[in-house]
């Protein structure tokens, strides 16, 4: 056990550069946690919109307010990022794109994809 304890630990965060694949991996977890936390909000809006015509109007006015639109855009971005990094992980499960160069490229592509989606969403709802 002593040899295990004496292993050098090097955690200078200003010198360690997490590769893009690592950033995407962490982002997949972070976005997943945020989405799970936002789940009740989704059910609340669904319930409100289905209750009666007044509830439907209330739900649409919440979503179309300025803060509502900003939230929708943020959630869209978070979902898209989680979606694309998830698809990337699924491909890796079946051994597609596991080579270093391809994995780095697909990691960058998840950001490109989620940013394109959020820009399209912005054009759609603003």
């Amino acid at each position: 056990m002593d040899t295990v304890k004496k292993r050098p630990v090097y955690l200078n965060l200003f010198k360690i550069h997490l590769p893009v694949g690592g950033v995407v991996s962490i982002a997949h977890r972070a976005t997943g946690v945020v989405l799970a936390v936002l789940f009740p909000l989704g059910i609340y809006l669904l319930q409100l919109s289905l209750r009666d015509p007044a509830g439907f109007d209330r739900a649409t006015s919440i979503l179309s307010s300025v803060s509502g639109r900003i939230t929708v855009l943020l959630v869209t971005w978070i979902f898209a990022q989680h979606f694309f990094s998830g698809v990337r992980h699924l491909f890796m499960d079946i051994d597609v794109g596991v080579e270093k160069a391809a994995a780095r490229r697909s990691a960058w592509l998840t950001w490109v994809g989620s940013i394109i989606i959020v820009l399209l969403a912005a054009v759609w709802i603003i």
Partner: protein
Amino acid sequence: MIRGATGSVGSGLGEWLLQRVTALYIGAFALYLLFRLIAAPVSDYVAWKSWFAAGGIRISFALFVASLLIHSWIGMRSVFMDYVKPGWLRFAVSLLTATGLLLLAVWAADVLIQGGR
């Protein structure tokens, strides 16, 4: 229970698979919802309510909610196992998460049933 060399119960393969199966359903249904709402935006309550009340849609929604809850549970648990080190705290946050997700399941079931009336 048969325990493996690592002392854990089961191999974790079931959870691994469940996480991927639910991911596929969530992704597919989210894409369906997106394209459906772009193709025919919902304009008023009556249209929204009658679309939602159809049995097929509500069953698809129920599967969607169930997938999201299972996917959240497995995902949150992985995060807790990796980052929450004290055993009692990990137990506490796991219990809190499980309770929260079960309450959400009951709430969502109520919304889905009421939505058919």
